[in-house]
């Protein structure tokens, strides 16, 4: 697809507080979305309060200085909107005709939460039940243990929800203190997407968020994540039908110069659509080992290093065969470059499918934030096809050799033995 045919009108303004406002026009839709994404980092919550930032996000809509939780919900529902808090801010989606009201409610929820004691305790109880429920789910158990094994003491190694022990200690005062300290405008983003002209949406954002003041927060230095000295294998037995297996190690940041080459590698190896990737073709389509299989290093790349993660859910008798299958494909992609056809197919897919990520307002708002946060530039949309087409077979081979380390992989499984 010729992405120059796609016109994406974006307006931007950085306020003196360091908050960046973004507005993206999505002509022809009758809906609107606005996202707030502040500079809240995984390392901002102390280890002994693991789960704090998650609970802050969950409790943002439980009451503000103007409305209690039910009043806030009724206000959103009455405009046909949906409002959701998260660890870095929140998102509102509503009909375009109600964009100002929706954005005001988003600002109120993100900037003026009161964290009422009764509601915080209630949500805390719900989170504790959720943790209990997750402890039942072998895929979640394996995924969390895998993350812990890969990241070690890095904050990303902790479960986002926290643990039963840490969550039980959290009090409303902890949530208020965390919010006051880290929900600051500096290095934060507010992005709106809808049918209005970008300049008009930007003016609206300025009115709504112009009063958001505060100095930049001080963030804790993140530790470096090292590869383990050698491969290791962990199994958590659970009485289930299937076993869920994760293999991998620490990966790359989104800003790594090899990101695009590795994105091509991922699609050849394990994230391609349908059953076009090597692992899905081999393990699912040819051997029938599983329903769900994937492998890739770029999907989790963010401000902090992500993970190279290979996943399969299979019957316990196929566990070793699946692991061997992954390792064989990882070995192969480190030994020989992809074929010319594989490379061409992946390039065609990546350059053509990009547009589908721009269809929804919430995706457009996220795209605008991502383009700025990772310094991609708003012309990224038009540069991307050339970046992908410039990737060569040898670059893929070189990147695979550099970034995949089968001899230092962690294998974690949970479920049937």
């Amino acid at each position, binding site marked *: *697809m010729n992405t120059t045919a*796609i016109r994406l009108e974006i307006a931007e303004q950085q306020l003196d507080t360091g908050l960046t406002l973004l507005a993206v026009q999505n*002509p*022809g*839709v*009758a*809906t609107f979305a606005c996202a707030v994404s502040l500079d809240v980092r995984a390392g901002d919550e102390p280890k002994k309060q693991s789960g704090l930032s998650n609970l802050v996000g969950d409790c943002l809509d439980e009451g503000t200085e103007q409305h209690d*939780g*039910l009043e806030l*919900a009724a206000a*959103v*529902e*009455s*405009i*046909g909107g*949906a*409002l*959701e808090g998260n660890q870095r801010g929140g998102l509102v989606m*509503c*009909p375009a005709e109600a964009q100002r009201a929706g954005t005001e409610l988003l600002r109120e929820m993100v900037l003026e939460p009161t964290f009422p004691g009764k509601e915080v305790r*209630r949500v805390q*109880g*719900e989170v*504790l*039940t*959720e943790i209990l*429920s997750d402890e*039942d*789910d*072998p895929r*979640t158990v394996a995924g969390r243990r895998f993350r812990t094994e890969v990241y070690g003491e890095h904050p990303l190694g902790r479960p986002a929800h926290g643990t039963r022990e840490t969550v039980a200690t959290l009090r409303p005062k902890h949530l208020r203190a965390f919010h006051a300290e880290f929900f600051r405008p500096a290095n934060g983003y507010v992005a709106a997407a809808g049918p209005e002209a970008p300049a008009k949406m930007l003016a609206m954002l300025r009115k709504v968020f112009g009063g958001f003041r505060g100095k930049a927060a001080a963030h804790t230095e993140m530790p470096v994540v090292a590869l383990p000295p050698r491969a290791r294998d962990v199994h958590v037995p659970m*009485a*289930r*039908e*299937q076993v869920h297996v994760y293999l991998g190690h620490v990966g790359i940041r989104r800003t790594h110069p090899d990101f695009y080459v590795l994105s091509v590698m991922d699609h050849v190896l394990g994230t*391609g*659509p*349908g*059953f*076009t990737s090597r692992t*899905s073709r081999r393990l699912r389509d040819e*051997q*029938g*080992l*599983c329903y*769900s299989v994937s492998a890739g290093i770029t999907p989790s790349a963010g401000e902090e290093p992500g993970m190279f993660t290979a996943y399969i*859910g299979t*019957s316990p008798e196929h566990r070793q065969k699946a692991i061997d299958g992954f390792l064989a494909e990882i070995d192969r992609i480190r030994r020989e470059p992809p074929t010319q056809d594989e490379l*061409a197919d*992946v390039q*065609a*897919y*990546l*350059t*053509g*499918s990009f*547009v*589908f990520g721009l*269809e929804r*307002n919430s995706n457009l708002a996220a795209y605008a934030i991502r383009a700025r946060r990772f310094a991609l530039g708003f012309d990224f949309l038009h540069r991307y096809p050339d970046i992908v087409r410039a990737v060569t077979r040898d670059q893929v081979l070189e990147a695979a050799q550099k970034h995949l380390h089968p001899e230092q992989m962690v294998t974690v499984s949970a479920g049937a033995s």
Partner: protein
Amino acid sequence: MTLSHVQELRLDNGFRALLAPRRSLPVVATVLWYQVGSRDERTGETGVSHFLEHMMFKGTQHFPKGQIDLLTSKMGGSNNAFTDCDGTAYHFALAADRWESALEIEQSRMRQCLLDPLEFASEKNVVLEELAMGEDDPWRPLYQTAESLLFQVHPYHHPVIGYKQDLERLSVDSMRGYYDRHYGPNRAFLVVAGDIDLDRTAARVNQLFGAMPANATPRAEALAEPMPQGERRAVLRTAHAVARLCLGFPTTRAGERDDYALDVLAHDLGIGKNSRLYRRLVLDEELVTDVSVINETRLDPGALFVLTELRQGADLDKVERIVREEIDAMAQDGVDKHDLARIRAQIRASFLFQDESVLDHALKLARFEALTPGGYKTLATVLPTYESLKPEELRQAAARYFAPARSVCVQAVPGRAEGNGAAAHKNGKAGKLKGGEPKDRPLQDKKDKKAGKARKSGRARDGKRKEKRRS
């Protein structure tokens, strides 16, 4: 909703196509919908509809194994499929300058699917793995048990994914017979939405599908489900640590006036933070973590489900009593007029959001075309119908559908005995239940489980049609 942009084609062989131009982005979505699903399966062949859907990607005469995905990938697009009880749909989302290959693929697999025996054997393993995956899910057995209690005669009784023994015994010849009976232009329709040239698209549809014979047999009526003579109950002993509850009530067909009333009642009961059950069970009594209410009307009379997950130590019987109290209160008092205005706003917005992507738009047209008596044109009357519902009509609908004697109740209790994954009945018909068998619904997927819940402030996503996706 304005439908003036939709052009309808009707070919002599019974094939229909809806063409819906939309030019905001250079993309096109196609949906080919077959009017066959698990509802059409005979005893002993459960799961064949869904399994066949998998096989439709394993090669046709013109597109050998792997080519459909590879071509889609080369075209920079995506494809997928789903099967539910009433239908099977195949869809593509592609760039506007290369989308027509999707039509060629659909034309080829309508009658030329290879059903290669070796591929059949390999894919059977994949389907059995998918079934096993569902068995580990905490919601699937709960929902499946409720459904099997609700539908004791109608084929909605059995899970879309089928029973393990049926799948293991299924032969490629049986599948071929099923394919020949149910797949043909007279049992299918196509939706194309996006940046298309109408005349060129119409000509291509005619060219590809017009000459195909109307081979498929007419769709058979399913056995009507008799009115329940009393409440039906089951208790599942599960390996999970959290207790869960599902109440179900038989309802009506999709697109009937009561379907709209049930949507409003579902919102009043358990969609959104201001719903009755959220306020009572989550906020006031703090007995459950969240609640979902799903109005799942279908081609034949469907059901409304209330699902909830209990907090640790909460009493299941007490939760059930409160659910029933709130349902009784709704049947007694109807829906408050302020709540009704709020619910209408939520429903109107949900309708708008279903048009944000071209594939969503195509699927919305397809669902209404497949499931409502008026077809896609029903879309023009949907919002006015919601607006026309009056409180007294809603109250009467609640009283009519939610009588305790019509209900089913399934409790999932932590503490499975060794080697016992089945249901223990309180009342109900012993031997009818297959407690370990999953219902093929993504309700179990964490993503969807959360999406259907009330915790988020404001509009809940439409939980109406639950599907099984291919990957």
